[in-house]
C-alpha cells in the first residue's frame, strides 16, 4: 500500500516536471500576445471615477458549518471580480 502511494507521488512529480515545457510554451505565447494586443485592458472605472460613498452597512449570520473539506477556499469566489454579474433583484 505505502509503496503504491510512493509510486503515485513520484509519478505525479514526473508528470509535473514533464508538463513544465508545454505550460511554459503556452504561458510565453499568451504573455507576449497580451503585451502586443492588450486584449485584456479596459477603463478601470471602479478606481478612476470620483466616487463618494457612505459607510458600508451590512450583516452576517452563521448558517452552516463545514467540518472537513480539502478545499482551501469557497467555491465561486467573486468578491474581487466586480464586473461578473449575478442574479439581479428588482
Amino acid at each position, binding site marked *: 500500500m*505505502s509503496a503504491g*502511494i510512493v509510486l503515485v507521488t513520484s509519478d505525479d512529480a514526473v508528470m509535473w516536471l514533464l508538463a513544465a*515545457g508545454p505550460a511554459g510554451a503556452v504561458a510565453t505565447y499568451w504573455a507576449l500576445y497580451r503585451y502586443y*494586443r492588450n486584449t485584456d*485592458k479596459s477603463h478601470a472605472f471602479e478606481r478612476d471615477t470620483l466616487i*463618494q460613498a457612505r459607510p458600508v452597512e451590512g450583516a452576517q449570520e452563521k448558517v452552516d458549518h463545514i467540518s472537513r473539506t480539502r478545499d482551501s477556499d469557497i467555491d465561486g469566489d467573486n*468578491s474581487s471580480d466586480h464586473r461578473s454579474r449575478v*442574479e439581479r433583484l428588482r
Partner: protein
Amino acid sequence: MTSAVPGDAQRPRDPEAPVFDGPPLSLEEELAAARAEPEPGPDIETVNESLADGLNRCPKCGGTDVRLRASTGMLVCLFCRHQWQESRVEEEFGLGEGIEELEGTVVASGADAVAADVDDVVTLTCGGCGADVVVDTAHSLNARCHWCRHTLNINQQTPNGAVPDAVLPFKLTHAEAVERIREFASKRRLFAHPRFKREFVPENVLGVYLPYLVVDARAEAAYVGRGEIQTRRWTEKQGDSSVTYYAADVYRVDRSVAFTVDDLTIEGAADRAVLDSSTTNNIVNTILPFDTKNAVKWNSSYLVGFTSEKRDLDVGDLQPVLEDQLLSIGRSQVRESLSDFDRGVRWEQERLDLGGSRWVSMYLPVWLYSYYQENTKMLHYIAVNARTGETMGSVPVSQWRLVAAALTVGTVLEGIAGAVLMGMA
C-alpha cells in the same frame, strides 16, 4: 398603426391624400389631453446662444478663420491672433453640484434622443457670399466656403446627435501624439507583424472628437451572498504523503452601500460601445478617463482641423450600461468590508436603486492611429488621450514568431525538466 415621426411634419404632404390623424378619441381622452401639462423642455439647456450656424466672427477683427491652439487650449483668430475661450460647463451649468440631491433622469439638451430620420448632411448659406455649402455632420462640424474661404460652423443643436452639450479641447499636439505612438510601437517591434512594421507611419495619426455621455449619479447597491471563515486547519498522514483539511463556518453575508459618482464616462457611439474580442474598441476605452471637469461650452471652432464622430446612442440605450457600472462600483466599495471572510465570499444576488442621474453629452479628444490587418480583417488602433497623454494600442502580431518563441521557451524548460529527471534517476 404607426405613430407619427418628427420628420413627417417637414415633408410636403400630398394634397390629394386623405387626412388621417388616428382613430377618434373618447371624450375622457380629449379632456385629459386638454388638461395635460405641456411637453417638458430639456432639463438643462446648453445651447450656446452667442453662436449661430454659419459664420462666427472673431470678436476683435471679424475674421472667421478661427481654430484651437492646443498649446494654450484657447481659440485663436488666425488673422489678428486674438485668443479667447468658452467658459467651463462645470460652473456654467452647475454640473459639479447637487449630485446628492439628484432625482430621476436629468438630461441636458445636447444629450436628447437622437432622431434616426434626420439627415446628417446640412446645407448652410455662406454669410459672406451667399453660396450654399454642405456639411456632413456625421464626421465634421465645419466647412470652408469654396468661393470666399470663410469658415462656416454648425453650432445649433440638431436632433441627429451631432452637436453635444460640451467639448473638451485637444491639449496634446500632433507632434506629441506621434512621439507617444512611436514610443508605444517601438517597445513592440520584435513580434509585430512584418507588414505592420513596414507600413507604420505614425505621422498619419488623426485627431478625432469621439462622442461620450458623462454621467453623475446617486445610487444605492445591495448584495447578498455566502462567505466562509476558516475555523481549523490540520494535516493527516496518508502513507508517506500528507493531506491538508479545513473546517469552516458558513455565513450569509449582506452588504449595502450608498454612493455618488461624478463624471462617469460612457461611449456614445454604437460602433465604439461593443467591447468584445471581435474588435479592438477596448483600446479606446482604456485611455479613459478624461479631465471632463475642464470641458467647455460648445463652439464648433474647437473642431476645425479635426474630425468628429456623431453620437448615435441615447440615454435610454445606455441606462443598462450605467446600471452595470454602478453595480461594479458598489461591489468594489464593499470589498474592504469582507476581510473577515478569509476563505472568500461568493456574491449570489445584487440590487441597485438608482436614485437619480444627470446626463451630459461631450466630445472628447483622441489621437487615433488605425491599421487594418487584411488577413484577419481586424482594425487595430493605437490611441492617445489628447488630454492626459495615456496611450494604449493593439499591435498585430506575427503568429510564426510568437509560436517560435513559445516553442523555444517550452523546449528549454523541457530540457531542464529532463535533466532534473535524469538526476533523480
